[in-house]
């Protein structure tokens, strides 16, 4: 536990990405695999289930600290974090032990689920007395289920790659999907040969950057493949060992949500993985995204909704063919095989992404101008000789969205509204990533439904990290697609850019904070041809 606490302290104490990676790599190469497995789990965003109601925990902490409830609440107001408040209020530790992280989790935290309240209390109080400083804080985070460390999954992958010498892509693949924090799994993560047994495992998605240069600077248009950028749910469809798995980009298994895709995929040859976009599609044309959201919101998919909002998979890419990883092959090769595989499946639900003929860049500009008519978000430009990369990599794929400008941003501050909505938090501040940090760049007030506002309000109250006057600093967790009319450089803003008329287009519940856009995306928008 001490070693893990030191790692978290190191991560907390530096803003530099490289230092974060170095600290994690050093930990992974020296830690007991049983501990390292849990460390990977927590660092990549896994969180233990909340096992004890926080009110009960707080009451025990008050009693231990000899503090009345009103004073505890004053302290909580000053800090905004329950785990930290308890850590600072509790008396100093009586003795310290150095039992390993996995012992604390497996012997102390996990058994809580089956214990009586009295036994739970005894375990919690004893742990408080045995843990000091940072370790006590981590313990409190473990039992309150609010564990967040502010490193992206990509950094964890980089650190694991650095510690093991294994390629980042392989690590990311082994880590995607359901990953069990067991010592064997950690060993397998860093193992040299790939005997990857998990048939459901998706590949990490390759993500595009917003185009930065003039089209002409991309060189010969013949070297590029142009497609529409569809506005649906990015997904991977896996057919292996006679089974089908559909993963969303949020790395959620959504096979059951899209039965038409699952049944179409049954006609794919074994050992096939497709990358595409799930789109609501009827009578040969896309439906608005809101229709798809209606469907996602349903717990049970009845015949009615399946009829009203059918979906297709617009297939972009082929990642695995005959059980072999095809990501290293050039796009032109993958696309040819993709057409063959889909033709063989004879399904109307699997649709190869239509290609836009590109003899000159003017053709791309014309297509871009027509994108809205096509109900597309814009264009994708992909290098024909390019491989399928891991995560967001520059150069191979560019996205060129149509106006209005849109970005995916993380909500970081919230403030109560005025008038009718004075009791609800309706004014939000949004941020994008800048080298591992979130920089605020826009405030937006409108665009959500009343039900969404109420839901968000409750979440904001429960997840306030800090309060400055009326402004609540909330956990960076929720991603929203923001639209705006214009963007320009602004030295007055922390982000260096100012956006015009920002508004919320939709709540991207399918994305996690680390999936939000970066400041580079915003900067690129400034130079975007329009």
């Amino acid at each position, binding site marked *: 536990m001490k070693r893990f606490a030191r790692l978290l302290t190191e991560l*907390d*104490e*530096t*803003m530099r990405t490289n230092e974060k990676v170095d600290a994690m790599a050093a930990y992974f190469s020296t830690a007991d695999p049983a501990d390292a497995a849990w460390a990977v789990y927590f660092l990549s965003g896994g969180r233990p289930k909340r096992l004890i109601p926080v009110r009960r925990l707080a009451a025990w902490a008050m009693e231990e*600290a000899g*503090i009345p409830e*009103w*004073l505890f609440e*004053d*302290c909580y107001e*000053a*800090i*905004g*974090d329950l785990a*930290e*408040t308890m850590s*600072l*209020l509790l008396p100093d530790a009586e003795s310290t032990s150095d039992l390993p992280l996995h012992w604390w989790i497996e012997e102390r935290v996990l058994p809580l689920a089956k214990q009586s309240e009295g036994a739970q209390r005894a375990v919690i109080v004893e742990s408080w007395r045995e843990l000091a400083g940072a370790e006590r804080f981590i313990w409190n985070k473990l039992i309150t289920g609010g564990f967040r460390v502010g490193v992206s999954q990509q950094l964890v992958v980089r650190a694991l790659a650095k510690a093991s010498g294994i390629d980042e892509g392989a690590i990311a693949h082994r880590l995607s999907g359901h990953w069990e924090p067991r010592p064997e799994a950690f060993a397998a993560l860093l193992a040299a040969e790939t005997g990857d047994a998990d048939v459901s495992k998706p590949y990490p998605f390759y993500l595009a950057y917003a185009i930065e240069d003039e089209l002409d600077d991309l060189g010969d248009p013949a070297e590029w493949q142009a497609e529409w950028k569809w506005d649906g749910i990015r997904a991977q469809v896996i057919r292996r060992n006679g089974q089908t798995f559909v993963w969303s980009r949020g790395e959620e298994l959504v096979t059951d949500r899209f039965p038409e895709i699952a049944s179409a995929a049954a006609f794919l040859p074994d050992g096939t993985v497709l990358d595409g976009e799930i789109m609501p599609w009827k009578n040969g044309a896309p439906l608005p995204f809101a229709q798809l959201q209606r469907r996602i919101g349903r717990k049970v998919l009845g015949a009615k909704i399946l009829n009203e909002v059918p979906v297709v998979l617009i297939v972009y890419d082929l990642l695995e063919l005959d059980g072999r990883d095809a990501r290293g092959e050039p796009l032109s090769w993958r696309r040819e095989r993709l057409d063959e595989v889909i033709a063989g499946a004879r399904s109307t639900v699997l649709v190869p992404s239509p290609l836009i003929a590109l003899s000159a860049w003017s053709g791309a500009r014309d297509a871009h101008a027509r994108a809205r008519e096509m109900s597309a978000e814009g264009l994708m430009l992909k290098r024909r000789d390019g491989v399928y990369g891991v995560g967001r990599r520059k150069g191979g794929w560019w996205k060129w969205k149509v106006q209005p400008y849109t970005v995916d941003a993380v909500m970081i501050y919230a403030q109560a509204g005025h008038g009718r909505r004075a009791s609800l938090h309706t004014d939000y501040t949004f941020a994008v990533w800048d080298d591992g940090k979130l920089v605020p760049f826009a405030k937006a007030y409108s665009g959500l439904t009343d039900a969404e506002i109420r839901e968000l309000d409750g979440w904001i109250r429960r997840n306030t*990290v*800090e309060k400055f006057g009326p402004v609540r*600093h909330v956990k960076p967790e929720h991603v929203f697609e923001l639209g705006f009319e214009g963007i320009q450089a602004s030295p007055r803003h922390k982000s260096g850019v100012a956006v015009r008329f920002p508004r919320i287009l939709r709540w991207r519940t399918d994305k996690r904070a680390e999936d939000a856009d970066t400041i580079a995306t915003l900067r690129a928008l400034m130079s975007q041809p329009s």
Partner: protein
Amino acid sequence: MDSKPQGLGAGVKGIGKLCGAPWARRLIWGCRKAFSSNRAEGATYRPENLRPDSVTTLLRLGDRGLYCEVGDFHIDPWQPVERAVITHAHGDHARWGSGTYLCSREGQGVLRTRLGTDASIQSVDWAEPVDINGVRVSLHPAGHILGSAQIRVEHRGEVWVASGDYKTDPDPTCTPFELVRCHTFITESTFGLPIYRWCPEWQVFDDIRAWWTANRHAGRASVLFGYALGKAQRLLAGLAGADIGPIYTHGAVERLNRDYRAAGVRLADTRYASDLPKGYDFSGSMIVAPPSAAGSTWLRRFGNVSTGFASGWMRIRGARRRRALDRGFVLSDHVDWPSLLAAVEGTGAQRVWVTHGTREPLVRWLTERGLEAMALRAQWKGEEDADPVEVAGEEIPA
């Protein structure tokens, strides 16, 4: 008021000779009795006049600060007054423009630096009583910064103590806090919540030294922020034996170092950073600067740096993260919650006025324990704003 016979200066000379102040020592330190024993000392309680702006209390809160009607003087006024008694030289407590100032002998140098050569400053030894229009005033160490004092005010057997800013933890740069028995205690509460509990100073210095060592190995300079008056010198005193090579300072810090050294306080050797030529390689060195230098162009000369801030606020994780600092070191020149409660109890005061910081929780806590506690709207700010980059009215070059 003009019928009162003497100015402040005359009072100092007159009474100072009369008594070597042993009487004052009777009351201070070592008498940690329960609250109940307090009334035996002949307090004149007027519970009907408890409002802080009431004319009938010995001290009250006026427009310009804490005022003693009988003695016609102010304590740490925030606007110019005729006679000001000053607890310490931090900017929110010692302001320009008053007729005469009275401070502790130990604090004279730093107060002069703050107020400039024109100010009329008189100083007294610890516990040496001064008669101001029939009110007995004496100064007692507050342990906050060099020369920081608690002001004891006595009239007709009633004793008030205005503590200014104070801490009870040891600090090699100033005389330790002395507990002064009184009927009414005016306390700060900069860190008036039980989440604020300080570690021993040596632990903090161990951490600072380890941080500097790691930075040196990484080829980085360590920039340690601390308020220019008090905290910076406490850091330099703590680093005196740490063997970490030359320490470079910001101008605001260096100016006050001179006052500390002149007062006999041992600080680590320092060099004024701006004395070094352009392009000088600072990697691996330690730099002590006021927090106002964070993010300034002045910092650029040091190249690759790691930043740390020594302050009680660093106890809270969010407070450090909000300032985008690499490290926070929990080192405060104010009392933490347990020491604050111990000080209040130790004074034996039955009435407690809480002047600045997180006042309400402390007031409620004391009230629930049977004290007459109330919050005072004083314009002092505690650690938050005590950053005298400007000294003696002129901006000091970095």
